[in-house]
């Protein structure tokens, strides 16, 4: 038993940080390694950012993602937990549900229930809903704590 490798998808949301805190708690208990992942949504960028802006925007987002991952890795390290940061580009849903769990042999995905935007917060984030439906890996969905971003 049972959680050697835990995947935690991160974005800028409060719920993602909540999920990370839970994952750190589990990792301490089970001596697991955490894989923090951020996926730069290049498909979405391509939709809005045709033309010259595409490369700049992608680079901006990758830079932001790198900073986010580095920052959260500090949190993991200071808790005495082993961690690895993964920066991917592509479709976040498919990457989190399928590609990353297979590549890193993940036992558990820990993610927040709601998404970043207000509409998604009403029920369940579309990424979380997608991952629960489509992944072959166990998923731990962390409930909202009622706090706003």
């Amino acid at each position: 038993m049972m959680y050697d490798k835990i995947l935690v998808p991160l974005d800028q949301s409060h719920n993602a940080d909540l999920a990370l805190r839970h994952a750190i708690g589990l990792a301490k208990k089970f001596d697991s390694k955490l894989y923090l992942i951020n996926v730069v949504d290049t498909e979405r960028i391509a939709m809005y950012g045709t033309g010259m802006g595409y490369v700049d925007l992608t680079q901006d987002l990758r830079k932001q993602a790198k900073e986010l991952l580095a920052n959260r890795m500090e949190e993991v390290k200071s808790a005495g937990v082993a961690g690895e940061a993964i920066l991917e580009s592509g479709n976040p849903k498919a990457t989190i549900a399928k590609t990353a769990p297979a590549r890193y042999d993940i036992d558990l995905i820990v993610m927040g229930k709601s998404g970043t935007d207000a509409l998604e917060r009403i029920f369940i984030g579309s990424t979380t809903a997608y991952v629960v439906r489509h992944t072959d890996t166990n998923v731990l969905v962390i409930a909202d704590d009622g706090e706003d971003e």
Partner: protein
Amino acid sequence: MYKRILVPLDGSHNAELALKDGIALASKFSAKLFLLAVADTPRIVAYGVGLGPKSNLFDDVTDRAQNLLDAAQKQAAQSGVDAKTILRDGNPKSVIAHDVPEEEKIDLIMIGKSGRDALERFLVGSTTDYVVRHAKCDIQIIRDRD
């Protein structure tokens, strides 16, 4: 982290996996397990009309559910985990997502992926989907990786 863990059981393979992981987690966190079986009375009424005396069918389902719970409780005890068994009538979705978590102050539900039959899944979406959407506590969805 977790003190009161709910595992709904329906006899499916994924529910068995959820039980196994639920026992392991409860043991690790010194948590109490709550084992739940729901006798789906609306469904029995829907399918059971004209099949004979209603009470026999209810008794049958209830006996099977109680056996499932007893076996699971025994399995937990073998790992030194204290488990309470709960047998309910009603709609599994709301019993699992709302009623029992609120009554027992559950902080984590361990649920097998799509424990119900394929037809219902096709028509209205699985119990698991409903619980993930509506329960207020943490939820872990367990599936067979093979």
